């Protein structure tokens, strides 16, 4: 990734030099950036905001105090397919958030065991159990048709959202 970034910057620097020489003074943003101080963190406030365990700990605590939300092998050394897994994960999270609207107590955990896709979710007891069963079946059926792989949902319900602390 670093070598491709370097190549991109070289190309773009050539392009910018040509552009600037042709009296066109637009600047192109060519290196990757990330806002490390603010990513995936809920900032400390007055003390009225309730926050779950997952939201309370910052990304640098992953592996130490937090687990992984999406477990697959494509980020390991010598393995590929990371981008496809990320796109699938984003779609699955949005799909679950929309299907079980207002029922999700915490982030969804996505596990991949071979071909099998397991979605683990903790829900608030907002709907009747029969409605939950219907939505689970609906989700499993649709997602297995989208991704051509068996999809299983492991769900656990909780009375209220589990609050870790107030920020």
């Amino acid at each position: 990734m670093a070598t491709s970034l370097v190549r991109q910057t070289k190309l773009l620097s050539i392009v910018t030099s040509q552009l600037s020489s042709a009296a066109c003074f637009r600047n192109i943003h060519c290196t990757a950036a990330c806002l490390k101080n603010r990513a995936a963190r809920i900032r400390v406030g007055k003390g009225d905001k309730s926050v779950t365990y997952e939201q309370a700990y910052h990304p640098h605590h992953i592996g130490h105090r937090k687990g992984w939300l999406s477990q697959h092998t494509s980020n390991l050394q010598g393995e590929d397919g990371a981008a496809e897994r990320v796109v699938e994960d984003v779609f699955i999270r949005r799909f679950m958030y929309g299907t079980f609207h207002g029922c999700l107590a915490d982030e969804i955990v996505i596990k991949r065991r071979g071909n099998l896709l397991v979605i683990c979710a903790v829900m608030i007891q907002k709907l009747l159990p029969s409605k939950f069963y219907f939505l689970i079946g609906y989700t499993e059926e649709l997602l297995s048709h989208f991704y051509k792989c068996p999809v299983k949902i492991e769900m656990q319900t909780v009375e209220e959202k589990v609050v870790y602390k107030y920020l």
Partner: protein
Amino acid sequence: IAVPLSAIRGAASLVSPLTTLPLPLPSRKHGGLRVEREERPRPVRDHSRTRPPGTAASFTCFIRYYPNRVADRVLSVFCHVLCVSQAAAAVRHQAGTSRSLHGARAPAVSARHLKQLGVTSLRSLSQVSLSEEPDALYQKLSVRVKGHDRSVLDSFEFFASLAARELGLSLERAFEPRKHTEKLTLLKSVHIFKKHRVQYETRTHHRTIEISRVTGSSARVYLEYIQRNLPEGVAMEVTKTSVEEIPEHIQKPLWDEGKLEPCGQ
């Protein structure tokens, strides 16, 4: 000083609190107290076992450890092992050896015994296929697992070594190669501030289990069992070193048969 540090640490001190001792300054990091952190105890790799592998006793022990993971296929594998050992014992008995092997090596696995463990159907031995061609022989079977979490690899190593021991395979060594870290250096801010960057890293831990002197069918069975129970987020690489027969044309040296022509003439 309100309370001396030695009292906080719980050490019996004969020194009165009025005398000043050259104690080290408490570190701010742990809130003013020096906390001695113990290392997380690593699992002891004890590969010596008293129970003989490949018997019904070891099989019941294995089922008790992993009741959810015992599939029918494993059962038929174990029955194959047991029945093969039983058949081997029967053959040896018939051949006329004086030692009685029935009681110790190959006890019969009764249906009642299996029902006690919750296994209702017993696949027949028709799953075992016999063929004329000789089985492949592997000098070494090297299973290398990679993952992001070291404790997951620890537990998988325990599981794989236990499975190898119970199946009667000779586990040569189980070690941990060096972890690999991939680092990325990116800009911290969206706009300008080129001097301020942020670094991310991805760690890949490895674990290798080496099994020596294995037949092809045993290796296939063991690998299938291991791979079916691979945890999520763990990748596996298998390297097999097979033992082949020397080809016919180089089995004997040429100078023995007198085929070489004398040189330098």
